[in-house]
């Protein structure tokens, strides 16, 4: 299990950032995809906006973009239909064979 997965299991959302050129590497990796330098692990922003969303049974699933300008798919807890560009927050995350990201409306 890597740093990203370990931290997710503690409920922490961390991402990889190049220690030389400061580029966020996403999906996370130990080596920068721009300059091949090593990364450091930093806390990722929990603030995000909705790019697109759909629904399976009672769960909304959304493509979101965080303030770090990285995109991911996650679940949105909401009784109302989400709006594009709606501001949301990463509320819960964990790793169980794959990452789970749960967001809530602000």
């Amino acid at each position, binding site marked *: 299990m890597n740093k990203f997965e370990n931290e997710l299991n503690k409920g922490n959302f961390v991402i990889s950032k190049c220690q030389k050129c400061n580029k966020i590497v996403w999906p996370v990796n130990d080596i920068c995809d721009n300059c091949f330098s090593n990364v450091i692990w930093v806390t990722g922003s929990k603030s995000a906006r909705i790019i697109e969303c759909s*629904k399976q049974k009672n769960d909304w699933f959304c493509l979101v973009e965080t303030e770090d300008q990285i995109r991911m798919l996650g679940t949105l807890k909401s009784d109302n239909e989400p709006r594009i560009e709606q501001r949301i927050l990463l509320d819960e995350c964990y790793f169980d064979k794959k990452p789970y990201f749960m967001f809530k409306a602000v």
Partner: protein
Amino acid sequence: MNEVATVAYGSTKFSDDDISVEDILLSTTKSLFDQTPNLSQNDIDTVLVSTNENGQYLGPILSELSGIKPNISHKIENLCSSGASSIVSAYSYIASGLSDTVLVVGADRYDSPGRLLEWDDARGEYTNPIFWASLFTKSYKRKFNLSEEELAIVSAKNHKNAIDNPNAYSNKAYTIPEIMNSKQITADLRLLDCSKPCTGGSAILMTSKELSKKFTDAPVWIKGIGQKTTSAGFTKNNDLTELESTKIASIDSFNMAKMSPNDIDVAEIHDAFSICEIMELEDIGFTKKGKGAEYVRTLFNTEDKKINPRGGLIGSGHPLGATGIAQTIEITQQLQNNAGKKQISNAKSGLVHNMSAAATSSAVIILES
């Protein structure tokens, strides 16, 4: 560069059969040999296996099972576009002079590991392709007011076309209401909007110009190739209503062939989901952005089989590693005037579009009789 032709082919029926990939590869190869009287094992100097199966050393294994002792033999895996990637590799071997006669065999099972891209952490728990397809569909609906009926026409057309394809997984036509009322997978995707991973194999023989005459009187020439990879991860797609890799691969392929979309008589394009066909028609250049559904409706209403005459992935099924090869076989048959009930009248040039993982990579191949 040497000119490269497709000269012979073989296939299994696409099914739910629970058989090993090695057995599918061999029966597919046997089908090709059975249909190619002048071909002997000694003619083949390269064997390429297209599959997502985890099995080891499948190129040499197929070679041994088939009695072939090739110079070059290996496996190619590139998710759903493994087949087109293998054909591009075969082209390169022949064009460069490294090989003269390449056997390309693709096969996968219904439970192929290529169905899911486990690497992409950014997909979170939503690893199944139905989720990116749902978001593509929702985004396109939002931007271009696509209706449920327009989406269903893609599936109705391709299931109908598949009835004349003896190797297709599906042999049933569906009405538009049946498709619109099929099982709801997500709010934006129904069961009959999805292609089905299945068991099947397709094989094609490619040769240099000099050797082509030994195997056929009607070689089909590869005139253009474009391939583009924009990323591996789905979330790198900037615009969910466009397939960037498909646009770039198409432009490159048309440039190489010195052709335009107007020159294409028949095409097999990668309708993994209904929305994909609509977007591809636009991004390959067959119609303007936002007009893909109208284009499909016209094909359906006029019973024009120009796009996906074998039924596409939705009608034919999707044995991942075999799909790009099956598409190329269809275009070869069309350009040889040998496609039976599926035949497009007077087809001279055709196009194959095969893509992977939410169009993070695409391949476009243009062929000419």
